[in-house]
């Protein structure tokens, strides 16, 4: 037996040629929208990754170099690209459109069925604030997946700051926010309801906080929100209208409970779904503060796709034809 580490794999010619074909079609779409491909080192200084986001820097694999510095295998591509933008392209022309095809690494347990090494195809749009940026990234993602041979994919769209905004607006004590947001990001709606019940809020505020995470679907979702939301949904409304203008309205699922684990997202967050795959095909969001942590503040958003999962969806689509 000559094992390979759990969560990693070898790729043989048949699969490889299909992966390459998917990669080619994604890349062609990205390039036709003027996204230029970049490459960053596989190993980065852990301290530098940590500048981007503490949790993301908690990468699965670390090692020391000859001088005792801690190196880490990147766990996503967005932080390295934020570093690249702030150091190599500081003060440059905007907007900046970048794409990548690269492996990222996360620690997984034995027998969990998850990959520790995964190939990501992604794009980052830097210097476009607000909903025009989101709308472009989402429309391009849909188009790239069309080109890759998918037909039933959908984008889940939420606002990563929405729940936090509401907690503040409803005057929930700040020391309770962390627990509530943790339940929400763990998708533990039972635990969330228990915590909300313990806050002693007025009934309409209580119902809003309990029901919001289950609100998802088309634009009718906005009408199903009851209670004191104020202007918290305005951003999502504008974005949805922009996507509908671009003809993508019926491929977007609004999801008011959507949050993403990574801490650097500041606004809209997205996930990509296909009925053939039980996991998300990818995800992303707006990260207006991340590049600034490396010294060159600029608004930005982006998305990353797991190419192997896109392949599973593409193969299933082929089987349906």
């Amino acid at each position: 037996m000559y094992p390979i580490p759990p969560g990693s794999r070898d790729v043989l010619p048949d699969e490889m040629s299909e992966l390459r074909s998917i990669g080619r079609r994604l890349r062609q779409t990205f390039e036709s929208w003027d996204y230029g491909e970049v490459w960053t080192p596989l190993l980065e200084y852990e301290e530098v990754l940590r500048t981007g986001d503490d949790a993301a820097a908690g990468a699965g694999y670390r090692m020391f170099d000859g001088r005792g510095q801690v190196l880490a295998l990147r766990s996503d591509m967005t932080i390295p690209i934020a570093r690249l933008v702030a150091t190599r392209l500081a003060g440059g022309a905007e907007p900046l459109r970048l794409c990548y095809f690269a492996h990222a690494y996360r620690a997984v347990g034995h027998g969990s069925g998850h990959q520790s090494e995964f190939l990501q195809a992604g794009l980052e749009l830097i210097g476009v604030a607000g909903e025009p940026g989101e709308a472009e990234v989402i429309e391009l993602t849909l188009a790239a997946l069309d080109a890759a041979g998918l037909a039933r994919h959908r984008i889940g769209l939420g606002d990563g700051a929405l729940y936090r905004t509401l907690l503040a607006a409803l005057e929930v004590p700040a020391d309770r926010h962390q627990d509530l947001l943790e339940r929400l990001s763990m998708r533990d709606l039972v635990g969330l309801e228990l915590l909300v019940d313990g806050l002693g809020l007025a009934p309409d505020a209580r119902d809003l906080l309990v029901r919001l995470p289950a609100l998802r679907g088309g634009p009718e979702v906005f009408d199903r929100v009851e209670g004191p939301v104020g202007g918290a949904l305005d951003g999502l409304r504008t974005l949805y209208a922009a996507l509908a203008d671009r003809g993508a309205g019926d491929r977007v699922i609004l999801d008011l409970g959507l949050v993403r684990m990574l801490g650097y997202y500041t606004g809209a967050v997205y996930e990509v779904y296909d009925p053939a795959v039980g996991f998300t095909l990818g995800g992303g969001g707006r990260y207006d503060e991340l590049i600034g942590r490396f010294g060159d503040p600029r608004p930005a958003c982006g998305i990353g796709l797991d190419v192997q999962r896109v392949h599973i969806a593409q193969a299933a689509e082929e089987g349906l034809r």
Partner: protein
Amino acid sequence: MRHKLTVAVPRGALFADTLDLLDTLGVETGEVRSNDRRLLFEDAGIVTMRPGDVPTYVEHGAADIGITGKDVLLEQPEREVYELLDLGYGRCEMVVAARTGDDALAESLRRLGRMRVATKYPRVASQHFAQTGRQAEIVEVKGSVELAPLTGLVDGIVDLTATGTTLRENGLEVLEEIVTCTARLIANPVAHKLKAPAMDALVGQIRDGGA
């Protein structure tokens, strides 16, 4: 369009109550009840399995929704599934227990600096002792945990108990209650979006029917 949902149903202690619940939702469970060996019931949209496997099937999307105990979910926190509802049945306590009358846990901790605890729930147990500031050596066992302290393998156990009968019959007593566990409805995150109408209808039906 109403998608049909595939349900992961736990065999074991939650089986009967779960089938009763599915009956109230209009799912045909007669075939499942009458056939002990078969695992997959495609017409009814039911797959049956050990409770501990339910999160795996649901996380991977092999089932859209599933029913399992909170104990299972606490032990497998890395599974990316929605926990939608507390179904209320299958109520059990996760407890620390030891031989009736002896003080093995406390004595061990005092003199040997740690206590030895057998359990099928190593994560829940480790976390409980860490949170209460006690060093514990966790011994993972697969079968009857009650045996472990009786044979001197460990000083005490962390296990699930509904009535305490099995513990008492083996000369064990409950020392601490860690958490109450009930059956939970869980859902695959992708199905939660793509099959939202069917899932919301089901959750609504259960909420209205129960409580």
